[in-house]
């Protein structure tokens, strides 16, 4: 104790010169935020800038030609294979995000408005499956949807179908189902948080003024929870466009997505500039789609009122 106290006094005495600087709010905040910020800059921002740079170059076997060219983007946007993969990825991530949000809204509403004292238990219950191995959850869906899978053998056993269906696995719908399951928690939490902030007295007021439950929901609850719906939509839409594991395991030939092509360019095909251009294109296009969806949603919410 005494040694520590003495150490502190010595420390304090030795420091007066630096004190004014450290006492400034701004300087302290900046000093504190700089380690994580530098980390993000060095390992995220710089690498993304490097990827963008590469997307304007070309590669001949192992040498990179640094002459500026838009050739990679021409390939990424006009070659049928990449164009189809990109469109399919956009379609899948759009469907998944809309479906996830639509399925998540009632449950978030239920927890927020009817959860009572079990609210945190419900939330815990819903987040648990999300924390189990992603790979294994996708694997599980393969087991469920497969030719000899759980769904087929169950339906056969019940006599609903005569022979196993092959339509369940290895297509875009299998990818959509799996991703909708995988991202559920990401949609529920933001919607729940925004529903919690809805002032309950406003709903009472709407009811007192003669609005039925549907009208008061459409005119009070839904518009007020829109921020949560929007962040849920974005938090599902943007990451799912680049999902790699799900299309690889349950997508088959008809469910391949753009990430599988990106991986190939950085792996076997060894064409970094093309891989970079595909990555940049994906990011830009998905951002545009997300922005358009948000705009549309806001317009729709205004119309509903």
């Amino acid at each position, binding site marked *: 104790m005494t040694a520590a106290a003495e150490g502190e006094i010595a420390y304090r005495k030795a420091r007066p010169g630096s004190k004014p600087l450290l006492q400034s709010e701004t300087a302290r905040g900046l000093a504190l935020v700089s380690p994580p910020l530098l980390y993000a800059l060095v390992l995220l921002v710089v690498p993304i800038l490097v*990827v963008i740079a590469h997307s304007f170059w070309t590669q001949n076997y192992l040498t990179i030609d640094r002459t500026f060219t838009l050739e990679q983007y021409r390939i990424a946007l006009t070659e049928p294979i990449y164009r189809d993969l990109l469109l399919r990825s956009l379609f899948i991530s759009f469907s998944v995000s809309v479906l996830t949000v639509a399925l998540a809204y009632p449950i978030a509403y239920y927890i927020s408005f009817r959860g009572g004292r079990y609210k945190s238990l419900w939330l815990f219950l819903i987040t648990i499956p999300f924390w189990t191995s992603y*790979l294994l959850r996708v694997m599980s869906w393969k*087991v469920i949807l497969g030719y000899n899978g759980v769904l087929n053998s169950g339906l056969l056993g019940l006599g609903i179908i005569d022979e196993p269906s092959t339509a369940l696995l290895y297509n875009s719908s299998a990818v959509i189902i799996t991703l909708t399951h995988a991202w559920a928690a990401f949609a529920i939490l933001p919607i729940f948080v925004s529903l919690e902030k809805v002032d309950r007295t406003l709903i009472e007021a709407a009811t007192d003024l003669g609005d039925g439950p549907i009208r008061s929901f459409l005119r009070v609850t839904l518009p007020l929870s829109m921020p949560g719906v929007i962040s849920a939509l974005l938090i599902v839409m943007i990451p799912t466009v680049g999902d790699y594991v799900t299309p690889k395991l349950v997508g088959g030939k008809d469910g391949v997505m753009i990430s599988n092509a990106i991986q190939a360019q950085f792996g076997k095909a060894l064409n970094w500039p093309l891989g970079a251009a595909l990555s940049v294109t994906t990011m830009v296009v998905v951002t545009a789609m997300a922005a358009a969806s948000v705009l549309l949603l806001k317009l729709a919410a205004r119309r509903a009122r």
Partner: protein
Amino acid sequence: MKRLLERWLPAYAILYVIFLYLPVLLLPVFSINASAVPKFPLTGYTLKWYEELPRTQALLDAAWNSLVVGVASAMLATVLGICAARAITRYRFPGRGTAHGLIMAPLVLPEIIVAVSMLLVLLRLGLSLSLFTVVLGHILICIPYSVSVLTAAFEGFDASLEEASADLGETAWGTFRRVTLPMVAPAIISSLLVSFTISLDDFIIAFFLGGTDATLPIYIWGQLRFAAKLPSVLALGTLLLVGSFALLTIAEILRRRAERRTQAPGVSLA
């Protein structure tokens, strides 16, 4: 209408939870099923798939790698997370919003983009891929979760306690160590556990940045190619499931204790 809602909403909630849990619960069911093919009807009870696990050297190596990577990533991400959460909740400085956004960015970026960008830089720098590069990537994707858990704790923190400590002659560091830190300790442990779980579960970063060093998800990915290996993978998956469940329950209990201690109502991702 109102009646209908009252009746159907709970039913929907229960169905939804079943939808969430069904795929997860199939793992333990088929991991103790005698048949090597996972389908109904079940053929009998066995533990042979579990008995195989400790005899597989590649699996033990992968588990050890995952443990090392997980512990290193969780500790470093939490240290950086503490800095970020503290700076954002306690101080006002120019560029605070931008800094926050940048630090949280990995949460809303496709993970493959994060992985590929880092891979490109590492390869261009001529660095060899190893567990170390996996840790670098995992820290990056764990920080946002760590920050969101810790921000909740720091926000609910009563600043007058720190002022009191400063008034009584404690230095800034002393106040932080002896007042702030003990108050947010449960959130810190929660952040460590959540980060560890994310690292343990991550496939994409380990796949791109791991080189020849395999973590558990990479080992599992390799096994998925062989249909005959499926039951052992399911057994391994069940063990991981139980492990993550235990860790997250502890994290949740600690988070709630922290919440009560700092009196901050709110929700975190954990």
